[in-house]
């Protein structure tokens, strides 16, 4: 007894030590890049996905509607939110200072920014007919009530280059920019406030606090006004809130279910604590190993790894149920010894199927496999070596345990007399698989893994429509070794995309090009002006013919001969009213990327064709990229499941040295996995990447069901104990994983439906395997 107490002490001490060690070293990563394929394309994918948390995603649009007081309310709200710790910047309009800032930035540089294609654009601009047209336009503008401003800039800018620049800036901004009274929607019915977020839009705590504060600040603003919001953060917070709500509800359901089950079956909650000890130990051991590596442990690896190690709950249930049903006074270690071979084989085959997962070329999937392949043997070791120390003498089965065991014996006895029915069950499973698999649909669209409230999505869409916003998930990356090369490429990308807009492959683009050109292109403009023969004379003559006083435009000729400013550089925009546009010029590692956001992409192929031949320019559809990653994970998981199944089959054949028994032990894993997929095919229910990874759990548990069923032998008592253990295991799994099927979130639901269906089918098949294996065992 003393030695068992020592085992208990050592086990708990070890568990605590592993927990403390892991807690002291754990460094969690949430970077999506860890889950990217390790292929040559990964750099671009990595760059693209880093932009998921881009400045465009770190932004909100607030649309205030109602009476004429909305403009003042928007200004007031903007001022209040400016001080908020989670708000990086606020933009609510251009004031007179901002307009003066634009003048200072661009007026002296107008000759650098005249034409995106200076070699032909500037000669065309300086043709006599075009100059005459510009003279007429200037005359028309002078006839307007605002001519006071025009008449002051016209002598130095008769061609209206600064005006054209302002028009470009206006077109490049998401909302209708004003010169003072705030930003308004296209229809003028809403005043807008743009907010920059300091934290990631996916930071639940920061964003839920900010959203609450925005509502509170708006409530303090006077007037009968409405507030509508748009932002990735809002969708992310709502989705996470829904997931948390689901998880809370499901956790309560699962804990209540498992506790009730253990109270009914074992009449003790202590039994539940003992049952979860091996899985917890496996998880602690795997975490301790993972945190010993220099690279941080990924949150997804930890979550899925924990779920995979959850299959180990079967081992203590078998031990505890067999022990309770054994003769009175049986020492726990004798009970373990009676099923040790089955336990070890189950553990070995499950571990091998996870090792196969670890061989995946996708690093994230490989990590999950390694994590589980470390945790399962650890859980098995605790089940075999330490668990007996926590159990009393055998023979203490509750009435329900005896009842379940007895009914299981009866069922197997009944089925033994109907061997055709026993053989027909696996055949029926195979038939469902054969019928369903050809109809199976895979679903790799990432959007289908999460659901957000339709009303929120509709509001988001409405607000974005009001400012003619771009689609944040579709953009073109212009990559260069430095900012200038990225901008040079961006100039060419802009030209190509303008053609794509003209040919309706694209509705619109929002490019840095509206605000900033490469130094090279700017200097080409100046050179083109300087190369124009008799420029000053031509302008003077044409404008004089249009009614302008000769010699009025000498200032323009001087600006070309000796510009008063250098070409515009990115750093010139820092601290200017247009500083935010630099968000589209990002340094990622050693490279620079200019990002052009797109709206209304009719065909991704059309955009790719438009960019053909531009080295370093890439069209990115983040949904498509993530979809491809998911598809890669799904395919790789299926390959690894097949590999794991083949290894498990070989091991079972080696262990049983009997092809039929080996095959039968294999059935509840491989056949059940195929039947689960077949059933989804028949029901028309598509399978996503999460469901596919959940199949690994089905495979890991299914092989346990097969091994125990085959090993139950011909002794009715052993058969009863085994099948009732499998029933308790199955119900536990249904409560732990199956309840996820109640979730509103498709990803969680998929885990629940796949795992729940799989273990139920494995349980259904087990009596038939038991019968067929015992028949084959007879000489």
């Amino acid at each position: 007894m003393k030695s068992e107490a020592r085992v208990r002490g050592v086990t708990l001490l070890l568990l605590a030590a592993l927990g403390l060690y892991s807690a002291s070293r754990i460094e969690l990563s949430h970077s999506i890049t860890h889950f990217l394929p390790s292929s040559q394309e990964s750099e671009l994918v990595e760059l693209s996905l880093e932009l998921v948390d881009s400045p465009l995603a770190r932004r909100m649009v607030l649309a205030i509607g109602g009476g004429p007081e909305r403009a003042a309310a928007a200004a007031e709200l903007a001022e209040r939110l400016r001080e908020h710790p989670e708000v990086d910047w606020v933009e609510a309009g251009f004031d007179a200072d901002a307009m003066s800032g634009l003048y200072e930035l661009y007026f002296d540089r107008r000759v650098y920014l005249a034409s995106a294609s200076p070699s032909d654009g500037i000669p065309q601009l300086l043709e006599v007919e075009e100059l005459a047209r510009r003279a007429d336009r200037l005359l028309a503008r002078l006839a307007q009530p605002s001519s006071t401003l025009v008449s002051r800039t016209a002598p130095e800018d008769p061609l209206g280059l600064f005006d054209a620049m302002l028009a470009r800036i206006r077109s490049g901004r998401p909302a209708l920019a004003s010169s003072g009274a705030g930003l308004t929607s296209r229809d003028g019915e809403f005043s807008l406030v743009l907010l920059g977020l300091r934290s990631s839009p996916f930071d639940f705590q920061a964003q839920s606090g900010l959203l609450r504060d925005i509502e509170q600040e708006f409530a303090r603003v006077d007037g009968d006004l409405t507030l509508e919001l748009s932002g990735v953060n809002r969708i992310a917070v709502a989705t996470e809130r829904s997931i948390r709500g689901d998880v809370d509800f499901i956790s309560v359901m699962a804990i209540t279910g498992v506790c009730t089950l253990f109270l009914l079956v074992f009449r003790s909650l202590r039994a539940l604590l003992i049952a979860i000890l091996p899985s917890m130990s496996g998880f602690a051991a795997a975490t301790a190993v993972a945190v010993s590596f220099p690279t941080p442990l990924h949150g997804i690896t930890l979550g899925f790894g924990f779920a995979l190690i959850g299959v180990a709950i079967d081992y203590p249930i078998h031990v505890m149920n067999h022990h309770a049903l054994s003769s009175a006074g049986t020492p726990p270690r004798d009970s373990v010894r009676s099923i040790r071979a089955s336990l070890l084989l189950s553990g070995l085959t499950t571990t091998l199927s996870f090792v196969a997962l670890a061989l995946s070329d996708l690093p994230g999937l490989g990590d999950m496999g390694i994590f589980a392949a470390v945790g399962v043997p650890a859980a098995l070791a605790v089940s075999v070596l330490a668990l007996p120390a926590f159990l009393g003498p055998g023979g203490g089965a509750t009435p329900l345990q005896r009842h379940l065991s007895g009914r299981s014996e009866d069922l197997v006895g009944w089925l033994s007399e109907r061997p055709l029915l026993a053989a027909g069950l696996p055949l029926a499973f195979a038939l469902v698989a054969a019928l369903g698999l050809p109809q199976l649909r895979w679903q790799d669209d990432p959007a289908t893994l999460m659901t957000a409230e339709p009303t929120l999505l509709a509001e988001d869409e409405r607000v974005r429509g009001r400012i003619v916003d771009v689609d944040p998930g579709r953009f073109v990356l212009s990559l260069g070794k430095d900012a200038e090369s990225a901008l040079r490429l961006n100039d060419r990308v802009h030209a190509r995309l303008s053609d794509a807009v003209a040919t309706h492959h694209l509705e619109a683009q929002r490019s840095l090009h509206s605000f900033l050109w490469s130094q090279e292109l700017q200097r080409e403009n100046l050179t083109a002006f300087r190369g124009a023969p008799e420029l000053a004379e031509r302008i003077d003559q044409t404008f004089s013919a249009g009614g302008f006083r000769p010699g009025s435009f000498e200032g323009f000729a001087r600006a070309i001969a000796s510009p008063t400013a250098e070409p515009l550089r990115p750093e010139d925009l820092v601290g200017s009213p247009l500083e935010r546009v630099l968000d589209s010029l990002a340094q990622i590692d050693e490279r620079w990327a200019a990002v052009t956001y797109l709206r209304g992409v009719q065909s991704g192929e059309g955009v790719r064709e438009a960019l053909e031949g531009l080295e370093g320019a890439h069209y990115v559809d983040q949904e498509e990229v993530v979809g491809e990653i998911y598809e890669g994970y799904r395919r790789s998981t299926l390959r690894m499941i097949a590999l794991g199944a083949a290894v498990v089959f070989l091991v079972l054949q080696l262990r049983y040295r009997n092809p039929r028994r080996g095959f039968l032990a294999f059935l509840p894993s491989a056949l059940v996995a195929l039947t689960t997929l077949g059933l989804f095919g028949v029901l028309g229910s598509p399978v996503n990447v999460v469901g596919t990874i959940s199949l690994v759990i089905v495979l890991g548990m299914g092989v346990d069901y097969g091994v125990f069923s085959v090993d139950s032998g011909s002794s009715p008592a052993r058969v009863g104990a085994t099948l009732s253990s499998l029933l308790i295991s199955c119900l536990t799994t249904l409560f732990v994983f199956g309840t996820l099927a109640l979730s509103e979130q498709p990803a969680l639901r998929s885990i629940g439906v796949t795992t729940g269906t799989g273990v139920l089918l494995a349980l259904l098949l087990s009596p038939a395997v038991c019968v067929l294996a015992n028949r084959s065992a007879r000489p």
Partner: protein
Amino acid sequence: MARFAGSGGVRARFRETKQLALLTAPLETQGVVVFEPPDRLARHTMRPGRSSVVVHGSRVAIRDETGHQILELDEEDPARHFIDSLAVLLRGDAEALRERYTVSFQSDETGWKLELEPRSKPLRRMIASISAGGRGAQLLRMEVRETNGDSAVTDFFEVETGLEFDPVEAQRIFSVEDRAGP
């Protein structure tokens, strides 16, 4: 100003003559101005080219042969002063006028004359003074003198006051949406 404030909607033909240093000859434009209290003003030019400027509160829509543009201009914006000083006068908003300008007023049996000098520094850099003259509730002449010597004289005639516009007519006159012509 009280008379203006109670004079309701106004429609008048106008002829504006601008003397600009840039041009060899005065620039003359003709058209129609329409005002509906409190803050809607449309200035449709018929000659020499067709163009429109429509002001509605802080919103200014400018449309001419080169295109259509909508601006939001706040009270402090110099461009707003140029565009809607006429609206401030026509609605008889004495307080707004005094906020923006130093005002001097003279009247006799032949009519009245208002002299306005901008208060704000940015505006003073461009506008030397504005004078307006008329009879009774009718504004008949307005002259803007700029600091660089340029000037604009607008004569109003066929002035109709006390007008009320039905919604369809108001929409036609004051629409700030993009459309084919004024």
